[in-house]
């Protein structure tokens, strides 16, 4: 054991370096780290951020060294304070040259940073080619409504808290909010954009490789701001088309879930929609294909049947203050509703 610990210790710097620089490890360790980019837009931003970061660290190191060396070089320690040091006249090394040289060099570095910033701004301003897909993101306290837009109105549908996008294609996002200000942000894919009442903001993202990327609301939006996350799932184009086709289908509930469907419609249907049933509420997330999603409650809990039961029976315990009321649902009722939801693949 001691041996393995030594080995681990000796490898610690390597692990640390790996955590910082190897994309796969870093992403696994800190999935919302935006210095690791997974798309062309995020890549440009990460390059700029790295450059600014390195420049900044250099500046801090240089100035700190100057301060420490300067203070140590001709220092007088307080015990000598009794020996009154006479003030030095400006004539003995006026020092203004320091300001000229220091400010001159700083200005050069600033100009470089400005040029790089301007270049990056121009590059990420628009997607490299016109996006074929537009997704509308609508913010709610405290979840994300996601609407897939299409010229063909029969292909438009709503989902929530989980966005699927095709790999290698720029996707346009139109973002707006139904209540307060939120901010749509998937760090490994690119920058954030605020959802502001009475305006629609537009941004774009592109993913380079398939995977699941975590995003989170970045603008304080009230009590459950902490639990307003989302997942962006990047699929291969074929998988993406298949996913979209599946999402368009109305819910098919098994005959044995008929009682569950009725109970769901009565108890939950005022707020939630399940297409193909009479549940058509619009206050909460669309649940037509809820079991196809990886998480529930805005990426707060894994979408496992036990968590789902806990959430339905007492949402206020998991997300205090959220807008889903704790209904008095009996054990057998819960079992029926759960059975119905489990069929919504």
């Amino acid at each position, binding site marked *: 054991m001691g041996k393995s610990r030594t080995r681990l210790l000796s490898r610690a710097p390597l692990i640390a370096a790996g955590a910082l620089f190897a994309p796969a490890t870093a992403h696994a360790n800190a999935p919302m780290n935006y210095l690791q980019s997974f798309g062309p837009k995020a890549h440009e931003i990460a390059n700029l951020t790295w450059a600014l970061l390195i420049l900044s660290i250099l500046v801090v190191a240089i100035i700190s060294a100057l301060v420490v060396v300067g203070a140590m070089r*001709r220092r007088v320690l307080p015990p000598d304070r009794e020996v009154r040091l006479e003030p030095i006249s400006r004539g003995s090394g006026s020092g203004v040259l320091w300001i000229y040289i220091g400010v001159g060099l*700083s200005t050069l570095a600033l100009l470089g940073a400005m040029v790089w910033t301007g270049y990056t701004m121009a590059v990420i301003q628009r997607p490299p080619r016109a996006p074929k897909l537009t997704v509308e993101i609508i913010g709610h306290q405290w979840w994300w409504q996601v609407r897939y837009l299409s010229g063909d109105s029969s292909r438009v549908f709503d989902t929530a808290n989980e966005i699927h996008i095709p790999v290698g294609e720029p996707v346009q996002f139109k973002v707006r909010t139904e209540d*307060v200000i939120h901010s749509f*942000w998937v760090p490994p894919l690119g920058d954030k954009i605020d959802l502001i009442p009475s305006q629609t903001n537009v941004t774009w993202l592109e993913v380079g490789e398939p995977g699941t990327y975590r995003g989170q609301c970045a603008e304080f*939006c009230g009590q459950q701001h902490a639990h307003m996350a989302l997942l962006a799932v990047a699929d291969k184009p074929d998988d993406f088309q298949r996913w979209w086709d599946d999402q368009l289908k109305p819910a098919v509930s098994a005959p044995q879930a008929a009682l569950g469907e009725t109970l769901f419609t009565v108890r939950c249907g005022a707020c939630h929609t399940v297409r193909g049933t009479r549940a058509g509420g619009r206050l909460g997330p669309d649940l037509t294909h809820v079991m196809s999603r990886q998480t529930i409650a805005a990426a707060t809990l894994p979408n496992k049947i036990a968590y789902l039961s806990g959430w339905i029976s007492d949402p206020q315990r998991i997300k205090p203050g959220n807008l889903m009321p704790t209904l008095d649902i009996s054990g057998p009722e819960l079992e029926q509703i759960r059975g119905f939801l489990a069929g919504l693949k």
Partner: protein
Amino acid sequence: MSSIAYERSAALETAGYDSPATSKLEQLWKTKPGLFGWLGTVDHKQLGKRYLITAFCFLIAGGIEALVMRLQLARPNQHLLTPEQYNELFSMHGITMIFLYAQPVLSGFSVFLFPLFLGTRDLAFPRLNSFSYYVYLFAGLFLYASFLVGAVPNDGWFNYPPNALKLYNPGPNIDFYALGMILLGISTTVGAANFLVTWLRLRAPGMSINRLPILTWSTTTTSVGILFSVPAVSLAFLMLWLDRQFGTHFFDPAGRGQPLLWQHLFWMFAHPWVYIVVLPAMGFVSEALPIFCRRPLVGYTVVVLATVATMVMGFGVWLHHMFATGLPFLALSFFSGASMVIVIPSAVAVFAWVATIWTGRPVVTTALLFFAGFIAMFVIGGVSGFMTAAVPSDRQMTDTYFVVAHIHYVLIGINLFPVMGALYVWFPKMTGRLLDERIGRWNFWLVFIGLNVAFLPMHWTGLAGMPRRIYTYPDGLGWNTVNMLTTIGAFILAIGVLVLLINIAVSRARGALAGPNPWDGPTLEWTTPSPPPSYNFAVIPAVASQNPLWEGRLQEGLGHSSVGRGLVLDQGKEVLATTPLDAEPDAILKMPQDSLAPLVVAIALTGLFAGLLVAWWWLAGLCAVVTLASLVVWLWPEPALGQIAVAAND
């Protein structure tokens, strides 16, 4: 009456602090004993100390709020606080530190030091000074009264509508904040006007603008900044209150109001405010670092110009708080550029300090440690700010912990460090006793280590994508270790602050006696005894250089300052007014006696705001009448102030 009646030739006299003339001055200037004197004093030294004590109380309150939050965030998925409690704490922490500590503490130093620096006997408007203090105190208590009724402001210090509107926030929480801020704005505004007029007109003869102590330049510059920025936020909070109370639609999207308008008004104020709470602190360093480097500041003129330039440019960068709100490309480019250019004046100051250290003989006192540490912290806070000026990077970093780390390096590094250093320098002037240097070392190193353990790793927390203002976070996102470190660092920092308080308590009672000039400083305040007598200067000094007490030894300049010989001005409470640029003697001003009027106006004004808060219009109306009536009493012309001409007949 003819103007002749006002003519008077005052003779130059030589007088020390032990001369008989001073007992008359003491009679004229000293605060009356008893409760009346305690409440009605207009002595800038007493008011300055009260400002400092009050600001430190709020620092402690805000610090406790921070520690509770750090316990909640030490590990993932904790339930120490409810989301509502957390939101209240982070809001009040920000409000307290930014509005009730960071600016008032600087005002406190300036209220105490301004007349001493400038060689005069009080601020230009002593009663306004008392009023300003009371309104600050009451506004702070007003905001904290929200704890008593359990309706604490809970939408952050930025307070964005529509979340701050009645629909989403029905309780009185935001009303406390809105009205408290308007009230506090009155205090800040009159305080700024007082500094500005004092700086322009109450300087010792000969103290032309190129000979002013540099701290007075910073404070005056920010006073002008206050006069231009506070109206924006007072207006914004008034509009917000109207939206909430009377259903107007300034910010309410349901009535076609513009939530973004709030962000513009707020940041038009709040970005300059960041400079307002750091520039005077940078002034402490520019003023006192040279004392401990045993040489005048390198580049006085360029540092002054850089200070003014920072304040002016500080009004042109507010949009960098809004890079993610969907603004047009051109606006983004302009404000990105402006936010980078503002680094240049800061670089001027940094290299001036570095050059002062390199070309001086640093005496390593606790104060010097704080000032040297400050330079490094200033640069860290500066470069992280510079990173957020780059629009693409900012749109990743904004609203993450990277910005939290940045603002704490700014507020702790550039405000608290110089404030602590300044305490070590001027506490002896305030109390007559030196702060203990040995405890001082502990104080410095605990604060320095605490700050860096707490906030250096926090940059990584932000780069790892942790958003701000979340009351808890899930496991597995790489945020655990850094959050634990931050919590540990926060407690080390808190212990460091505690050590300072212990040092103050111990040294106040048993510290070494300071004498008039313990650090052999060059400016006028070091000619007075410690603590200074109520009248500050036995005679009004005359100044012939930037460093009157060093000029003989530096062998610079042509004339000689005169500190023992000057105008006595003892026919009543009198100070000398001088001309704004060259500080030539201009007039003798009569100063007011202690007065309860400022306190009464402040109480009535606070009552007015309390009435507005609870919508008891009769109370608001009554208090408005009392406010006006007591203002009339306050401003009633007095013979002793030369405001009624008959006085000249005597």
